[in-house]
């Protein structure tokens, strides 16, 4: 009798142990699944936040629901911050347009009156002063003009409207604009013929390339030539402007595209150091870029790469 109850007892213990182990395993598996589900939900929340479609789904006493609420709060905070940034940007836009508007009249008045003054009979000293005044007013005019243009481009007040255009007509136009400067220094501008087309905004790209060509003439010695060439690739069109000018040192090659950078080697020449900055700004807005290769004393080649097709 006693042996039988002992047997029964050990049976029960074994069975109980089995039940315990099985249920422990089941609980463990379930909690693991639950944990995994929680993490998957969190990952999904973040994916939704990245794509901007996050909404709160659960409202209960779970920790996950509270995390969701806090996350939504955080995202709202970020949204407010970015809205504030956009508002600040708008203020800057307004300020720029005010500045450009308000400075236009005084500057043109300065230029007008200094010209009137120069038409008077003046003593040689006075004439020298008036000449300087004239030159500086012109420089100021150019500077304000370029500054306003670059900031308008940077703040997206101006938007470019690139279309597929033939390149040669633009190059001819640009050459015409600098013809007199080239003639003065007896520099020959040579355009290689091409029928290539590219994706660009005619007016702005002209300005960008004009700045490059203008520099090429400025820093070339008389009697040299400047070659303008178009090379075609599968995705890009490349406009090379190659001069035999003074060249640019390796350390300076990336700096010359920065705003207001002027090489110490050319500090005696006219210029404010904004032209190439503007050029680069314009070309990169169109999805292209400008590359420079140069050897000091031998000359520089500025390569403007334009897209051939419209990007989406």
């Amino acid at each position: 009798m006693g042996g039988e109850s002992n047997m029964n007892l050990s049976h029960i213990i074994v069975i109980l142990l089995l039940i315990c182990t099985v249920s422990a395993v089941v609980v463990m598996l379930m909690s693991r699944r639950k944990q995994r589900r929680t993490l998957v939900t969190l990952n999904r929340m973040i994916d939704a936040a990245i794509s901007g479609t996050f909404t709160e789904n659960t409202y209960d006493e779970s920790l996950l629901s509270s995390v969701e609420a806090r996350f939504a709060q955080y995202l709202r905070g970020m949204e407010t911050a970015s809205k504030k940034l956009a508002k600040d940007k708008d203020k800057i836009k307004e300020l720029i347009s005010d500045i450009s508007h308000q400075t236009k009249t005084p500057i043109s008045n300065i230029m007008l009156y200094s010209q009137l003054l120069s038409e008077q009979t003046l003593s040689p000293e006075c004439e020298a002063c008036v000449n300087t005044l004239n030159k500086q007013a012109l420089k100021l005019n150019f500077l304000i003009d370029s500054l306003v243009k670059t900031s308008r481009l940077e703040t997206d007040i101006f938007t470019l409207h690139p279309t597929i255009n033939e390149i040669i007509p633009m190059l001819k136009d640009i050459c015409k604009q600098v013809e007199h400067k080239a003639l003065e220094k007896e520099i020959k501008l040579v355009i290689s013929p091409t029928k290539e087309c590219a994706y660009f905004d005619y007016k702005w790209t002209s300005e960008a390339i004009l700045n490059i060509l203008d520099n090429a003439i400025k820093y070339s010695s008389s009697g040299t030539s400047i070659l303008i060439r178009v090379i075609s690739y599968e995705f890009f069109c490349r406009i090379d402007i190659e001069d035999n000018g003074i060249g640019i040192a390796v350390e300076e090659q990336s700096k010359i595209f920065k705003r207001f950078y002027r090489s110490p080697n050319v500090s005696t020449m006219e210029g404010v150091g904004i032209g190439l900055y503007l050029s680069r700004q314009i070309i990169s807005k169109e999805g292209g870029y400008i590359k420079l290769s140069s050897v000091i004393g031998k000359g520089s080649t500025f390569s403007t790469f334009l897209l051939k097709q419209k990007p989406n």
Partner: protein
Amino acid sequence: MNILETQSLTKIYGSGETMVHALDDVNLEIKRGEFVAVVGMSGSGKSTLLHMLGGLDRPTKGSVHVDGKEIFQLNEEQLTIFRRRKIGFVFQNYNLVPILTVYENIVLPIQLDGNIPDKAYLDQIIHTLGLEQKLNNLSNNLSGGQQQRVAIARALAFKPAIILADEPTGNLDSKTSQDVLSLLKVTSQKFGQTIVMITHNEEIAQLADRIIHIEDGKIVGGALA
């Protein structure tokens, strides 16, 4: 802000008489969004440098910080995952998976991490790199230039902290090279992607915002941002 920084990075191969300082006390800084070229002749240590920056090999001495993290404090497994998330590689021989389509190759690193690809961003990359017609092709049916464009798309897709490109146009003809490099340049501008490109070709390097010259394992110019 510096996305990449090395401090007295040194790599020594061999010992005694055969000892070679492949990298000798290299300190450099790269800022977020910069396109940097590392130029040197073969044997100058530029590939060793790239392997260190990408956590593919461990240095003898010194440290590499990527996105604020000292990468050689991680163990092998952590380093593998760190590489996958933070570093995009573009190699000379493309390293695509031949049995996968172009699209599958591009999203592979994202899917390995169990994430859903950001469709809008992917579309932008695919369009910029001119791959929309090729998405369902097997990658080994493409030309070299096309394969390298897929590799660039794959590297960009994860929005890594840096893309390391090792002679990306080494196997391409000069005309195709120019296109691939242009695309690399334009994507770095458009997506603000930091790129470190290794090359022996000065002409190619001129595309970059900054050129770092390396000779006999030492940086001889352009180390600081």
